[in-house]
Structure formats: C-alpha cells, structure tokens
C-alpha cells in the first residue's frame, strides 16, 4: 500500500525535475534525434523540406564491395603488357561507371592487392569514412593496451611510500589538467619537421645520425605521432585510476604473501593483479571510449591529413555535420559510433559480471 507518509511524490519530482529535464533535452533527445536524422537528408540550413530516405545514408557510408579485374587480353587470349612488361588491367572506372553494374555506381577504390594474375580491388561508397573507421580502430587498438600498461607501471612505481612521492604523482598527472587543445598545439611544435624539439632531441641522442622527420606531415608517421601524444597526455589519468584500484587491495594480503615467501613477481601475479581485474576492465573501457571520441588532436594537429591518414570518426562527423552542414550525414556517423561504443560497454558488462 503506497501511503503519502513515506512517499513524497511532489517533493521527489520537484527536486529531480530541473536536472532530469536538462538531461532529457540535451542528452536523451539529441540521442534519439541522431537516430531519426540518420534516416533523412536534413541539412543545418536548407530551403528544401527534409525528406525521409530510409537507410540510404548508411548505404552511402558502409557500401563495400570487392571487384576482380582480369588482365586485358588480345584476341589470341594473351595478356596485354605495357612497355615495362606489366600486365594491363581494365580501368576501375569502366566498372563503377558501367551500366552493367549499377550496384557499384559512385564507389571508389579503397585498396587493392594482386591475386595470381588478377587484381582484387576493395571499393567503397565512402573511402574517407572507411579510412576514418580503420584509423579510429587502429588508434584504440594501439593506445588502449600501451596507455593502460604504461599507466599501471607508473602506478606501481608511485605506490611506494618514499619521501617526495607526492611530488612525482603531481607531475605525472599534470598533463591531464592541461587542455588537449593546448597540448596538441605544443606538440605540433615538438613534432615540427624543421625546428621541432623531437628531431633536435633525437639528433642530440644519436650524435647527429638521425635524419629529421616531418612527423605530422608524413602519412606513415602522422597517426603514430598523434597516438604517442595522446598517450603522454592522459597516462596520468589512468595512473590515478590504477592507484585507486591498488589501494583497495588489503595490506594484510601483501603481508601474508611476504610471510609465505612470495617473490615480487609472484606477489604481483597472485595478489596485485587479481585485485585489479575490475580496474583493468574499467581503464580499458575508459581509454577505448576516449579513443573513439578522438577529435581535438586531429582538428588542431593534422585536420585529418596527410592523405586522410589521420581521419577519425568524430572528425568526419563534425566535418560533415558542421563543416558541410550535412546534419544527416554527421548524425549517421554518430549513430555508427554509438553502436560501436554500446557494443564495447556490453562487453565490459559481460567481463565484469558477477561470477
């Protein structure tokens, strides 16, 4: 029986209303908006009415196909070769523009490989999006384990009561409170090809043997450079989370391990690590979430370049939704991003479930 004695409906709703209304309006509503908008052709400012387009936006982004090009042959069936002796293939355009293959219309080459005498080509409706998707996953797959384990090492190093340890903890954590925009600009200077500090340091360390690299201007080093800086900036954050996890392990367990004669490695393996299992999952999930949200570093340091080698999902979502005012396109990328994030948090749930 619900009674008005211990049930305070009016007060309860009054207190919760401002906060809940704001969350509904600015988090929940836009979230459902994103899903709705991804099935329209909505633009930020447009004279034309918005139309429902179904899954077209998703097809536009996710369309993928593999085409096989067979060598061009003469009437005798011999493969044609150019002067350098290379096998001649028909041009991809002949397929993507052909009336015979309407399903490939508008798709462009993403990458290709040789298979026997044929060439296999992966074509995508949106090559830039595909690159952004791959880069984002690459970023997460590298940063999560590296940043997570470096942070754990720092935490273990810091988790000793020696004089002045607080000073070191304070310093290691310092980059976390500095804006990622500031950090990105600073590191642009550090990574600079001519006057960059990194090149200077490497040259000094190798006594001039090192050849300067334009870290952000080179497609093969740009993404790793962004990864390294991101790890540097946030490793202190995760160090603190590891430290909080370490402090939940009862000191008596260490005393018991010491009495049993466990080595330092054994102590870590059988006492520390089992006690950190949930922290480990949390750290990985937080890094993963932060990784999928990668934007400011890219916007400040590379703008997605060079040659789309640092495109990311959020950068693409913003570039379309804001830069090109293509709200529906940006929303579609957002929904895809959310689906990925949701899948990861479900995996986290599964990993930390009560057993």
């Amino acid at each position, binding site marked *: *029986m619900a*009674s008005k*004695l*211990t049930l305070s409906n009016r007060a309860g709703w009054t207190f919760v209303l401002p906060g809940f209304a704001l969350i509904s309006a600015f988090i929940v509503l836009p979230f459902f908006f994103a899903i709705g908008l991804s099935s329209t052709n909505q633009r930020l400012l447009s004279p034309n009415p918005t139309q429902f387009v179904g899954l077209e936006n998703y097809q536009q982004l996710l369309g993928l196909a593999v085409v096989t090009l067979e060598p061009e042959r003469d009437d005798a069936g011999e493969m044609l070769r150019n002067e350098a002796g290379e096998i001649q293939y028909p041009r991809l355009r002949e397929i993507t523009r052909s009336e015979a293959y309407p399903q490939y219309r508008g798709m462009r080459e993403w990458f290709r490989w040789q298979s026997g005498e044929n060439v296999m080509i992966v074509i995508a409706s949106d090559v830039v999006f595909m690159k952004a998707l791959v880069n984002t996953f690459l970023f997460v797959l590298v940063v999560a384990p590296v940043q997570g384990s470096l942070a754990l090492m720092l935490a273990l190093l810091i988790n000793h009561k020696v004089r002045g340890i607080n000073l070191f903890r304070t310093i290691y954590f310092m980059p976390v409170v500095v804006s990622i925009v500031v950090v990105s600009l600073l590191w642009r200077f550090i990574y600079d090809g001519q006057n960059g500090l990194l090149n200077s340091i490497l040259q000094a360390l190798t006594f001039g043997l090192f050849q300067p690299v334009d870290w952000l201007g080179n497609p093969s080093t740009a993404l790793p450079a962004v990864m390294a800086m991101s790890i540097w900036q946030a490793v202190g954050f995760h160090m603190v989370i590891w430290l909080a996890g370490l402090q939940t392990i009862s000191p008596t367990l260490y005393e018991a391990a010491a009495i049993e004669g466990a080595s330092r490695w054994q102590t870590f393996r059988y006492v520390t690590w089992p006690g950190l299992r949930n922290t480990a999952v949390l750290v990985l999930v937080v890094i993963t979430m932060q990784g999928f949200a990668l934007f400011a570093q890219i916007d400040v340091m590379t703008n997605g370049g060079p040659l789309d080698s640092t495109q990311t999902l959020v950068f693409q979502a913003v570039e379309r939704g804001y830069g090109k005012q293509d709200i529906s396109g940006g929303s579609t990328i957002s929904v895809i991003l959310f689906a990925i994030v949701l899948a990861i948090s479900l995996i986290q749930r599964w990993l930390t479930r009560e057993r």
Partner: protein
Amino acid sequence: MAEVSLKGVKKSFGRVEIIKGVDIHINDGEFVVFVGPSGCGKSTLLRMIAGLEDITEGTLEIGGRVVNQLQPKQRGVAMVFQSYAIFPHMTVRENIAFGLTIARASKQEKQQKVAEAARILQMEHLLDRRPSQLSGGQRQRVAIGRAITRKPAVFLFDEPLSNLDAALRMDMRMEIGRLRRQLGTTMIYVTHDQVEAMTLADRIVVLKDGQVMQIGAPMELYHEPANRFVAGFLGAPSMNFLNVDVLDLDGEAAMVGNQSLEPIRVATRGRPFRKGGKAILGVRPQYLRAVQSGKGLLHGIVAHAERLGSETVVDLSLRDNSELIAAFDEDKVFEPGDALELTFDTALAHLFPDEGELQTH
C-alpha cells in the same frame, strides 16, 4: 503528554509480514520498553510510531488522534537513535536547538530552552563543542538534549545505549531513569538488553517474530511468564527447560517427572496438559539449591563450573543427558565429575505445554 495506542498494527514489505498485528496501549507518562531478539520487529514498530515507516494495516493513535498518515513532525514525537544521529557540522548548541531552528523559534526561546536542556543533562560546559570532540556518552547526551528541548508528547528511544561500553551504559541507564522521573513524559524504549528493560520499564512488551509475546510489569514477566519464550528470554542465566512426562493431572496442578527428576507437583496456571503426555518444566538457575545426597529432586554430574565471585554458575549433565544450569549466590568450588543433587521450590517452577505435543491436537 499523551497516551499511545496501537490497534491491530501490521507491516509488510511486499509479501513478507514483519509486524503481524500488534495491540498495545501505552498510558500517559508511562515508560514502556519493547524488548526481543534481533529481527523481532521492535525497531520497526518504534519507527512506525515515529512516522519513519508506513503502517500497512491497523491504527496508531497518539493523544487520542489517529496519526497513521501524519508526518513525523506532526506527531509530536522526539527520537533518540542508536548512532546518536547528531549533526557533525553543528556545535552542541546548534544540535540541541535544531528542532527549534526548524520551527523558527525566537532567539530568546532557543537560548532559554537550550540552557534548560543543558542543565538537566549537566552539559553546560559542552555547548560550544563540535560532536567530533565529544565522547560516546556525551554524544548520546546531546541526542537526548535535542529530543527534550521540543517538549514532545512522546519520547522514542531506539537502542540508545548499545553503542556505549559497559561501564558507560550503566551510567546512562541511570541517567535515563532519572530523566524519566524528572520529565514524566510518555517514553517508548527499544532494546535487546533485558537489564535495561527490567530496570527502566513500567511495563515491558516482549516481541518475537512481529508478535507480542507478553505485556506486563518487569517482575510480573519475570515471575509469571505467559509462555516459554518470555520465560527463557528474561533472566540470566536463562531459565532451564526440562522435558518431562505428565504423570497425573488434577484441577490446577500436574504431577510431572522423568528419569532425572523425582515426581513433583506443579501448578498448571490454566494451561492445557494431557495425562501421559509431554510437558516442559521451567526452573530458573537461581532457584536451584544443592542438597545432601538422597534429598534432591534432580541428580546431575558437574560438567563445568564458572566462579564469578558473587555467584557460581554450574553446568550439569543430568541422567537423561539433558543439560542444566544452576546459579548459587556464593563462591563454591565444584570439580568436573562431581555428583550433585539439587532441589527447588516447586511453587517457583513453571509448566509449559510441549510445542510439538500441542500441534498434534
């Protein structure tokens, strides 16, 4: 000042019934103690009177007014909690004046009432301290001070002494007794400690599994327990219970005995027994006396003895392997293995129906 009356009061959480129909009438100015083992519902019942828990069924009247649906502040009650619940960010003075501040009392009134409470509880020197600077007993005094300033119609105490150590507990117990005489307000006091119950109460309500087992003055409960539970709950060491056979039955007494007990005649006090059936004989350890061989009603072997100085508690094993505790009010030496014969005044013994036996009827 007010009387408190519970009529058919029930409480359930979902399908689980916690309080199973309680009727209690508490007179104006009476000190009533709810006592029982943990989980018996005594605290829940008190919180229902305070207005912190819903009453699922039945009515609660305070001062002749049904208050089931009234908020705590409208009921005219004050409560002292087990953890004291004094506000850590306020001084003692602010704590004591809290209810008056909430009621927007004038500065003058607050000052006067705080001073009065401080005088009654002898803590004038503590008024400007913070709770963190106080001992457990002082904190409890602040909590009581906060309760008395508002001059409530009913005081509610929820195990107020159980967080204190033994010595302090006795002091505070006496203090509460003194306060009670001084204020003369209706008080309801919950405890699991039978000493507190026996020493403080005008009447005790013994609860078990959400039901009232017996209501009565302390000595009434001690000498005339209504059932085996009350008999066993009050008194330390607990009453001995012996399984006996009903040998014979007449109007108001039964002849009972077993292989370790010589046949004796015990008053039935109107309880139902059956000739040839089983019964339970209750004898308090204090009523047992050691006697010379051949004159005892009970024959046992000493298993273990504890000398406490003022009394000696002996654990005996009887012929039928049942256990018996005897408490002698002098310092005596017993060795394990000693044979011992005991006797007691059969008028002080109680006969209870055997529960298993009752169910077959």
